[in-house]
């Protein structure tokens, strides 16, 4: 009983912070999402408009486009990071000369703020003066201009995201791989299982919780990507990289469309929860059921 009370006392500050900085703002956003509110409209006050904003969102081509490009971005970025991260994690499980240095360098992008990453990549990608377009043109005769080519802009953002966040995936997977017990692997080898069978039937199921946790983190991060994209392309060319985070930013800040912007935020939060739930159901629920 006493330990229960102590537990609640110790939890209280965290719960209070969560309530004031997480729950309350969320409730406020939901409240605002049912209003028409632009402080620079002829009537700057909040006007209750029921579900009008939610109805409008269904026909908002810009929003729907932003959801589309975001989903594509998340798929490409997260899957690539998972694959590259796993390969690197396996590499770091082995000993090779310069491993410590390489591991440190490989982790460096993680400590960079997204806005800095965006700035650096912008500098590297600017036509004529950027190092990447310069050498692509010099060595391969390829002309890359992220200001005119939607494909180039989109691809660059994915590569930038992979460069920035793969180390996180690698570190998480290294932790998972290190903690695997050796017995099942030895047993499988004795039973004559090949590498592919060991990978799919032992390694993957055993590291699945870590993979799912990593994917959750990256999925949620990728869905709210703003800073890097804002710096690199501003959402362009056209709307090619106007991800949902950028769309919300433009709606809420420059456009000061607080009501509608809140509605989009609520919907995006809902979609994120659904995506995470689907992922959980697909990857972990069958395993839990089996257990």
């Amino acid at each position, binding site marked *: 009983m006493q330990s229960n009370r102590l537990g609640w006392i110790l939890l209280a500050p965290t719960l209070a912070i969560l309530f004031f900085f997480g729950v309350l703002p969320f409730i406020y956003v939901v409240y605002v999402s049912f209003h028409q509110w*632009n*402080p*620079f*409209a*002829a*009537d*700057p006050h909040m006007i209750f408009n029921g579900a009008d904003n939610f109805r409008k969102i269904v026909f908002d081509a*810009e929003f729907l486009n932003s959801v589309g490009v975001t989903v594509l971005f998340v798929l490409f970025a997260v899957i690539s990071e998972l694959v590259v991260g796993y390969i690197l994690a396996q590499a770091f499980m082995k000993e090779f000369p310069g491993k410590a240095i390489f591991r440190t360098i490989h982790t460096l992008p993680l400590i960079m703020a997204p806005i800095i990453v965006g700035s650096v990549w*912008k500098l590297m990608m*600017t*036509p*004529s*003066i950027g190092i990447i377009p310069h050498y692509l043109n010099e060595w391969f005769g390829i002309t890359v*201009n*992220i*200001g*005119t080519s*939607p494909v180039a802009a989109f691809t660059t953002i994915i590569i930038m995201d992979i460069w920035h966040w793969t180390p996180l995936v690698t570190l998480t997977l290294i932790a998972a791989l290190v903690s695997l017990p050796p017995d099942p692997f030895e047993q499988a080898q004795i039973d004559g299982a090949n590498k592919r069978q060991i990978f799919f039937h032992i390694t993957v199921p055993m590291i699945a919780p870590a993979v799912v946790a990593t994917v959750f983190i990256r999925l949620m991060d990728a869905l709210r990507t703003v800073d890097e994209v804002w710096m690199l*392309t*501003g*959402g*362009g*060319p*056209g*709307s*090619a*990289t*106007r991800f949902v985070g950028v769309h919300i930013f*433009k*709606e809420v*800040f*420059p*456009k*000061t*469309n607080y009501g509608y912007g809140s509605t989009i935020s609520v919907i995006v939060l809902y979609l994120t929860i659904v995506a995470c739930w689907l992922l959980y159901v697909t990857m972990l629920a069958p395993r839990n059921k089996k257990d």
Partner: protein
Amino acid sequence: MNTVFKLAASALALSFAAGMANADDAFWKEAAAPYQGVTLRGVTESSPPSLYIREVLAPQFEELTGIRVDIETTSWDQMFDKAIKDMEAGTGIYDMVYIEQDIIYSYLARDFLTDTTQLLADHPELKAPTYDEGNFTTFADYFKGSNGHLYGIPMEAFIKIYLYRTDLFGDPDIQAAFKESTGRDLTPATTHEEYTEIAKFFYDYGQKNNLQLWGATVQGHTGHPASWYEYVETIAPTFGIYNWGIKADNNYAASVANGGEMNSDTAKEALQWWLDLRQYAPPESNQSTWTEVGTTFGAGRAAQGLVYGENAGWIASDPEKSLVVGKVGVALPPLSDGVLAEAEAGEGYIGYYDGGAFGLPSTSKNKEAAALFLEYIGQNEVQPDWAVAAPRVTNTATYDDPKVQDMNKELGGYYDMLKDKGYLFAGAPAYPFHAQLREAVAPTFYKILTGDVSVSDGLDQMAEIAEATLTELGYRK
């Protein structure tokens, strides 16, 4: 005898000036006495004029008065975000906010700003003897409310001008080649056709001679509002399309069908002309905002360009940043027939008069102390060094200062143009929905830039979106 007389007169003048300075110092100390311990906080864009306030004027004021001034310089969008949120929520964090000329109408509509004229009238003890609203140029009119009172102290004012490379335009070989190619002398363009002709000539010249030189700058970012601004504020007016093609006195009509001009044939011609210029512009143009256009010109990569005046200073005179120091001339932008006459008659304008002021939020908790600082930066006395450090002029007397005159020569006569031709330029229209409308039409505008939508269809869509947005905001009935 004559020399003795001159020395005596100089000594007398010096002692008079010193006496005046002491008297002025005494005013600041006395006026600031009740506000000791106060810290003023301001937020502004990280631009050369603002940095001068932070690095020079704020410390000077602090030393003189004992009132601490913290100036936060940040990015353009962050600056607005912070200022608007503070004033909207009424938190009173900021005592001074940067008011860009185009946002003043939104701020006035929301009563965000303090009437500084009234504040000083109500508190005569705060009125500095060296501060006078009459010292400002006519640019100050943009910061006046309907009562004629000032709601912001002008701190920077520029015109977006036509810069050209005097070394290239004055080269006899290039002149001869141009004459042979076009049949006319190489002089700064006065019409759009001439401007394109020059752009094409220098583009070909750069290609032929394997130079990193292109025909013109274009502020054509495909995902940043800078490109939209270049079109509506700089290009469209030179074709006679004013105020973004919206008729405020006709129920904010934007489409031709309803009496607006946003999608008129002339507007389409203007946009097409500008888009066509991109073929002669450096490759980075489609990622260029206002800053990058200045950088492109300063790097010597364009023979001519339409450049914000705030960048003209370092382009023309800072050898650490610019490769074209001493090689820059200024001219009026190229115009369609009749536009200059309309501007001279006050019925139109030929380009953008850009700038901003420091305003005092209604929510400030230190209005009196902040008013003192605003007066301080509005004095004639602090202007010349400020104008040399960052090419901005807000006070009429600044033009005549010897330092500014010297700078004017370095800038190829930019200050003369600002003084004599400034009246031909205009700030943004008096719309309280500036950013809201911009963001509504910008996605379509970017699609025009990328070629996803044609100029004609795109402007038709923009006019339709503009009217729908203005209806939703409650301005269009």
